[in-house]
């Protein structure tokens, strides 16, 4: 029973991290109708940037989190402006622009991975923070970082949700996500909003990277698996739905941790894909998804 509780706490916190990355993917999808294949790399680079901020400025963990988010957000805007803008100009159908975007994202992802390799090397980096003794719940020792993940992620989600629903800028972002042409006619600066969406999404990925840093080592190859799991989370929750991304993340995290705990542990990374494939085949709209965009 205690083992189960341990698995649940670990699964939920890991799942919330998946949810944060899935949130960015979902945001980009709802805003631009494209799937960003290089998102895992922003997560990885954000994690490294957190280390860099801590080492260079000696700032505490939470400032590193915010610093990494800002730098990654700016990086995301730059990448979008320089590379993706040409492709999304057409509006974003699936066949031509979509295929181009997928291939382009793939290329960008390996390029960013190589940049990270040149900057930080291939060895796994430990996170230079200590949270002190783990918390004891009965006989289970839980590192404090799991609780930090829960708190930080929930705060970030609340801030994002408030931003999207309560502010004028957030309304503009949602208008762009709903219909670009109409919002253009209503005086929304669509290109700036698209850049903003990219920046926020990449900042979320970086936050996930910094949050997971103290649990896992940080290394340049961690982007791919995270990308696939975050996709699984986004699909399970329903593509394009923000609460769905969080819920999907928790479902994927729990499923994966429980399967690894009670079935074969070495196949841990496969379970998320199985869930992804089953959900896509059985219920492509996901748990909370309402709209599935299909080419006419």
């Amino acid at each position, binding site marked *: 029973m205690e083992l189960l509780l341990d698995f649940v706490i670990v699964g939920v916190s890991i799942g919330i991290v998946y949810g944060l990355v899935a949130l960015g993917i979902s945001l980009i999808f709802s805003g631009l109708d494209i799937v960003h294949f290089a998102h895992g790399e922003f997560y990885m680079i954000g994690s490294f940037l957190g280390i860099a901020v801590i080492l260079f400025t000696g700032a505490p963990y939470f400032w590193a989190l915010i610093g990494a988010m800002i730098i990654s957000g700016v990086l995301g805007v730059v990448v979008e402006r320089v590379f993706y803008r040409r492709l999304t100009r057409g509006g974003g159908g699936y*066949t031509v622009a979509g295929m181009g975007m997928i291939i382009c994202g793939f290329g960008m992802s390996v390029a960013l991975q190589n940049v990270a390799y*040149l900057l930080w090397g291939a060895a796994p980096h430990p996170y230079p923070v200590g949270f002190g003794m783990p918390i004891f719940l009965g006989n289970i020792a839980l590192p404090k970082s799991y609780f930090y993940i829960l708190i930080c992620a929930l705060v970030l989600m609340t801030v994002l949700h408030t931003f999207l629903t309560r502010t004028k800028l957030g309304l503009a972002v949602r208008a762009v996500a709903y219909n670009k042409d109409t919002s253009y006619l209503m005086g929304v600066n669509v290109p700036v909003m698209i850049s903003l969406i990219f920046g926020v999404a990449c900042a979320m990925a970086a936050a996930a990277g910094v949050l997971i840093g103290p649990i896992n080592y940080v290394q340049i190859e961690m982007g791919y698996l995270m990308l696939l799991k975050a996709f699984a989370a986004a699909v399970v929750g329903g593509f394009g739905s923000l609460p769905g991304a969080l819920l999907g993340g928790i479902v994927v995290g729990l499923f994966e941790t429980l399967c690894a705990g009670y079935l074969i542990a070495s196949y841990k990374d496969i379970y998320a894909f199985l869930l*992804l494939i089953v959900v896509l085949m059985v219920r492509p709209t996901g748990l909370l998804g309402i709209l599935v965009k299909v080419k006419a």
Partner: protein
Amino acid sequence: MMAEPAASLRFVDSVERGLARLRAIHPLMPWVIAALVLAPLPWVLVNTYHVYLANFICLMILLSVGLNIVKGFCGQVTVGHVGLYAIGAYTAAVMSVNFGTPFWISLPIAVGVTLLAGMVVGIPSFRLEGAYLALVTLGLGESVRLFISATEYLGATNGFSGVPAPRIGEFRFDTYQKYYFLVMPVMLLGVFFSFQILRSRLGRAFMAVREDPVAAAASGVNVRRHKMIAFMISAAYAGFAGALYAHMIPGYLNPRNFTVIEMVTLLLMVVLGGLGHIWGGIIGAIVVTIVYDITKDYYHYSLLMFGMVIVLTVLFMPKGIGGIIDRFIATRRFIAIRERQAEAARDEAD
């Protein structure tokens, strides 16, 4: 006086006239010539490493031609092709090491298993398209690699070694020079079949599915069946390439040879050569493998280079090298026609 056409156009015209003359002798004549030209390569390339490279290019051509059929011609975005390649390679290896079957039996079995796996990859394409399909195929491809690296029976991360070289009687294909005569004919056959398929009714149906599934269905193309056929054909190519790769010396397989990086390289071949161009996979495989080999000293930067080349190719030449060549020839033809017309007008004025 007739205006002299540009040198490049004269070259293209003479090549085409030559091909037409060969086809007039026998439709298969150009292929026989190609085989004869490629056959002495092991003696021309003195260095064994270069012969190995030629073998590798042949395998890559098989893979990228297969990928181009499903991706470029049928328009289904699949990024799990390396998973099929791995399935082909490991099936052949397990059959010949653990069950002791000779290469000539394990090859068809590997191709058959890969065909079945291709069907499994193809089923999601009925309901999903675009990014969703890319995700599922990426997930399947990665799952294959993760499964292999976590399964002791398949050697896990240590790799699977001791795959014997193929043999006919006492003749063993145990050097790269000998193996070339196994790989090259298979590659030529693969390219030949891809040309036959893509220029037939089947190929046109694939293109119809790519351009607009609804319109294709309205014109009497069974969309589901053609998607499935495209996936199966490309899987068969991957199976052949995988089995040949497994039996090539040193007969050693490692899951690290089937990562996303290999997938990106494969993607680069198809994209750079030209998605949906009949020569795309071939041009891409040759160019990318040779460039990769030349820049081997800078392997730290290779992924950065590959990634940026993919991005820039998609942005600035979406039809790849093949498309550029096509456009160049078309432009030259156009200029030549215009010149001829201008000349005729001048003659008339005189």
